[in-house]
């Protein structure tokens, strides 16, 4: 597969894996309105996954479903944050907020890509992210300033999530090559703005910016948490049980 295909595929993996996680919220949200909002967000991610995986597959004649359903754990290159179990509502919302800020910067930059297809997908994603961010930023504030319990839960979520954020701003050889060619986003360049924006929001919500005590990485190399395999078992079950059929 070409560099661009591999790049589109890993971005598709990001969208697919978080989209699948968000599906797990269905019928489990604290209020019905949030059930609908979480489904909306999931639909945006799954729609984005379809566009990116279709594009990735176009480089070597594979369908979006072959890429989503017939690869194993080591072939997925999503960022680790995407695959972490949902946890409580505070955990899911804090993750969403950290990612929304990241994706806001990321897709704005990717919309300038020299690859027209990626630029077009990013343009659409940027609009969705703007809406996601408005919502998750409100929730961060609401939970941070709500009750002692909501504050404590959100703080615990941030503390746990923090170690997975370093990976958002690291580049590997593939992305370096593509960034030099004007195709990929230089994610290192997003970090300062992200840190400033996130620090401000966390502080204003009455929460503490976590200490950087530990950090893990590996998603882009296909080295994942143990959670991913279980997510894929569920996602891929029917295609694996009945290979090669049309549904």
């Amino acid at each position: 597969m070409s560099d661009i295909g591999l790049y589109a595929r890993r971005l598709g993996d990001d969208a697919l894996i978080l989209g699948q996680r968000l599906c797990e919220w269905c019928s489990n949200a604290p209020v019905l309105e949030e059930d609908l909002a979480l489904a909306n967000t999931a639909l945006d991610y799954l729609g984005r996954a379809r566009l990116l995986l279709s594009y990735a597959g176009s480089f070597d004649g594979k369908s979006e479903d072959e890429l989503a359903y017939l690869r194993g754990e080591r072939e997925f290159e999503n960022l680790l944050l995407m695959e972490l179990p949902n946890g409580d509502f505070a955990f899911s919302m804090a993750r969403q907020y950290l990612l929304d800020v990241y994706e806001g910067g990321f897709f704005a930059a990717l919309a300038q890509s020299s690859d027209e297809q990626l630029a077009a997908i990013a343009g659409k994603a940027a609009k969705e992210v703007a809406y996601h961010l408005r919502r998750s930023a409100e929730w961060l504030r609401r939970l941070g300033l709500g009750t002692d319990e909501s504050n404590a839960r959100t703080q615990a979520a941030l503390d746990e999530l923090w170690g997975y954020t370093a990976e958002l701003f690291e580049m590997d050889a593939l992305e370096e090559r593509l960034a030099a060619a004007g195709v990929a986003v230089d994610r290192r360049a997003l970090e300062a703005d992200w840190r400033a924006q996130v620090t401000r929001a966390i502080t204003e919500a009455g929460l503490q910016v976590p200490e950087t005590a530990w950090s893990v990485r590996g998603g882009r190399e296909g080295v994942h948490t143990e959670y991913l395999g279980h997510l894929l078992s569920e996602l891929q079950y029917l295609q694996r049980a009945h290979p090669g059929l049309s549904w």
Partner: protein
Amino acid sequence: MAETTEDLEQAFEAKIAAEEKIEPKDWMPEAYRKNLVRQMSQHAHSEVIGMQPEGNWLTRAPTLKRKCILLAKIQDEGGHGLYLYSATETLGVSREELIDALHEGRAKYASIFNYPSLTWADIGAIGWLVDGAAIVNQISLQRTSYGPYARAMVRICKEESFHQRQGYEIMVELARGSDAQKAMAQDALNRWWWPSLMMFGPHDAESAHSAQSMLWKIKRQSNDDLRQKFVDQTVPQAEAIGLRIPDDALVWNEARGHYDFGEIDWDEFQRVIRGDGLCNRQRLRHHKQAHDDGAWVREAMAAYAAREENV
């Protein structure tokens, strides 16, 4: 001069007779109000509980396209629930009270959702049959006498016809697929057919609320008439894709211009309503668990709203 209760009742009856809608601020008999709260909240609960059997296949949907369509559909159902709760609130009862009634077993939801969704074909069968049956009922309810309920139905019917089609499409695809897929489709039809017929409720003569509801025009067509309509429209759809409806007595009756069909197992109907369905306890426990798990979030929302007001 103050109006007497008799005057108010007369005005109410005149409106019903003239096919005018009753609106939230209009006077209405307490029994009419109670009957509506019962029916509308049951309808709302059904939409929300119905998210569970379909959600059961969301993370296992066989293609990304099917997953997106299913998620959009389930989201619609949640939206219908929200819309119906709001319509019910116009009768002076809060959503919180309605949910408490559900959790305490004082309010019901459609008993069909006490059956399990075991295979992917069940997602097809639920859309095709369960939504199909719901539409027949809801089209009729577009003419119900309570304004907010009638208007909710108009909107809901538009979306339900998409749902029915997505379910049928799943069945079409399975019916022309591998032997295993065909068997999966037939098995789902076998299990969902009779419960779908039960959705219309008991025969007219045995229906607890029917007579009064018809007089008040809350209900516009009888259970048996609606059931017949559903059978008549669904049989050709099954034939078109080579699936067999599990009823040996099913036959076209030229003289009546309708299909004759076998007797429903009313013992099973009563058993499942009373609690003997495979999923009765699971559905309620799931709903209650999500609600309880979310209590701290709702408290935070309230505390934050109060804080903002004071700023």
